[in-house]
């Protein structure tokens, strides 16, 4: 058991001060904007919850939220199983382990706008490797600046390229922590590959998998830079995700009130969904 010691507060004080400075003050600014209306000249007056009502009822917000939810849903159902499969088939020891880990982690260390630019170059119809291959070798008409479906597939593929490794690394860490004795026991019992996975590997990975799903959820729900650099939200509005729309309203149109209200709704949704995931995935541990 941990000791009760209020001195703990002294230890966490620097962290609290630094994070609070960055979290609470901007948050208060946002709340402040969200309840006010302005006609310019820095004159603000009380607007109540009007902006929140407007945003929640607006078709534009609902459409962006729908695209965002669909994007996150696709990311989770592709990246999590794929990550688990790759982690399971990776070597456990020897020369190839560091090679795999380093090459797999590489995409995560590339600045996000470079990722977007890189995929842009990669998919250019006539001079990009993938674009050229699809258009001129396979004969599939592919141009993501024209075709919304192509744009969606490209954005999803880019995110899979960028972030699946996070799931792989986390699951791999869970797998290597399983003692060999477990596998030997399973072999003696004549367990099939499936039951080894179901009853030994999966339970051991559960904790890291929870973290992986949570991180992937939060980050894909908040994704901004990569799709923005890749498609700019187009063609039309087809890949305008929630954060892209938010930045358009806040920094493009400078509509501070609606943008602030939208920010708070956005944050609340992320917070609630993360809490829900966390509670559902750890529910069995408590029992």
């Amino acid at each position, binding site marked *: 058991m941990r000791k009760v010691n209020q001195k703990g507060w002294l230890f966490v004080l620097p962290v609290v001060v630094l994070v609070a400075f960055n979290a609470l003050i901007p948050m208060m600014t946002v709340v402040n904007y969200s309840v006010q209306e302005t006609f310019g000249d820095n004159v603000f007056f009380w607007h109540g919850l009007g902006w929140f009502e407007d945003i929640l009822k607006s078709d534009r917000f609902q459409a962006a939220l729908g695209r965002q939810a669909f994007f996150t849903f696709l990311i989770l159902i592709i990246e999590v199983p794929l990550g688990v499969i790759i982690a399971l088939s990776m*070597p456990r020891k020897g020369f190839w382990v560091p090679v795999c880990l380093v090459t797999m982690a590489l995409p995560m*260390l590339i600045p996000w706008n470079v990722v977007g630019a890189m995929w842009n170059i990669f998919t250019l119809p006539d001079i990009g490797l993938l674009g050229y291959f699809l258009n001129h070798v396979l004969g599939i008409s592919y141009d993501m600046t024209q075709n919304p479906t192509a744009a969606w597939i490209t954005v999803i593929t880019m995110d899979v390229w960028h972030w699946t490794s996070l799931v792989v690394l986390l699951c791999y860490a869970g797998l290597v922590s399983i003692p060999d004795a477990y596998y030997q026991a399973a072999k003696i019992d004549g367990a099939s590959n499936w039951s080894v996975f179901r009853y030994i590997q999966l339970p051991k990975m559960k904790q890291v998998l929870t973290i992986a799903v949570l991180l992937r959820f939060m980050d894909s729900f908040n994704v901004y830079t990569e799709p923005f650099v890749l498609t700019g939200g187009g063609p039309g509005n087809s890949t305008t995700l929630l954060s892209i729309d938010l930045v358009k309203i806040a920094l493009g149109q400078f509509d501070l009130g609606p943008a602030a209200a939208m920010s708070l709704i956005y944050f609340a949704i992320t917070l609630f969904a993360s809490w829900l995931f966390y509670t559902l995935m750890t529910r069995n541990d408590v029992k």
Partner: protein
Amino acid sequence: MRKRSIIPILYIAFLMLPIYWLVAMSFKTTQEILGGFSLFPQTWTLASYRTIFTDPTWYWGYINSIAYVTINTVISVTVALPAAYAFSRYRFLGDKQLFFWLLTNRMAPAAVFALPFFQLYSAVGLFDTYWAVALAHCLFNIPLAVWILEGFMGGVPKELDETAFVDGYSFPRFFLKIFLPTIKAGVGVAAFFCFMFSWVELLLAKTLTAVYAKPIAATMTKTASSAGYELGLLAAAGTLTIIPGAIVIWFVRNYIAKGFALGRV
């Protein structure tokens, strides 16, 4: 070779293809890039790299980025160490709530904070300095560092602390001489993640800087839009941004798997 190693091989090939294309393009001449498709550079040129290394607006971008990322990593890990110790060893009023609150900051979309951050850092006079970006990135890096370090510290038996105190070690001496070396893998992993998330973030870094602290990523977006899309230059700049990450990951390669497994992460 076992049959199932085909999966990691295919996956790594998939990861390397876009990177290969970026590197290949950075060695091509603009003519060749726009002239048509070629799998390898026909005439190798270092022109794009020469531009970057001789033009101050380009190479200062790299220096700026490395400066604020380093400051941020040092601050985040330094303040997270005692906090993680407190979370793993003591119980105090509101500790669980505090821990959760810290984690919620990882969930806030950076897009939400862009404008208020600009106003905040302008108000305190730090706008367009390394400190502005370094401090702003603490928002998501400190919670992460605390989370990772707390996991590692939880794996160290409490007897270690108690024995040291019985032996007459003062707390700071124990922490620096005994505890820190024990969890150095954790410090490495935490520093790695702080470096990574600060290096790759662009939105806040771009919002909080104008001229003197502008990150390389922002220089790139400017070039992409203003100079009529010089793909070769853009590719060379992109290639160079991969290098710091590759170096850092090479140093922590042995800690990554072990580190994850030891920690609660």
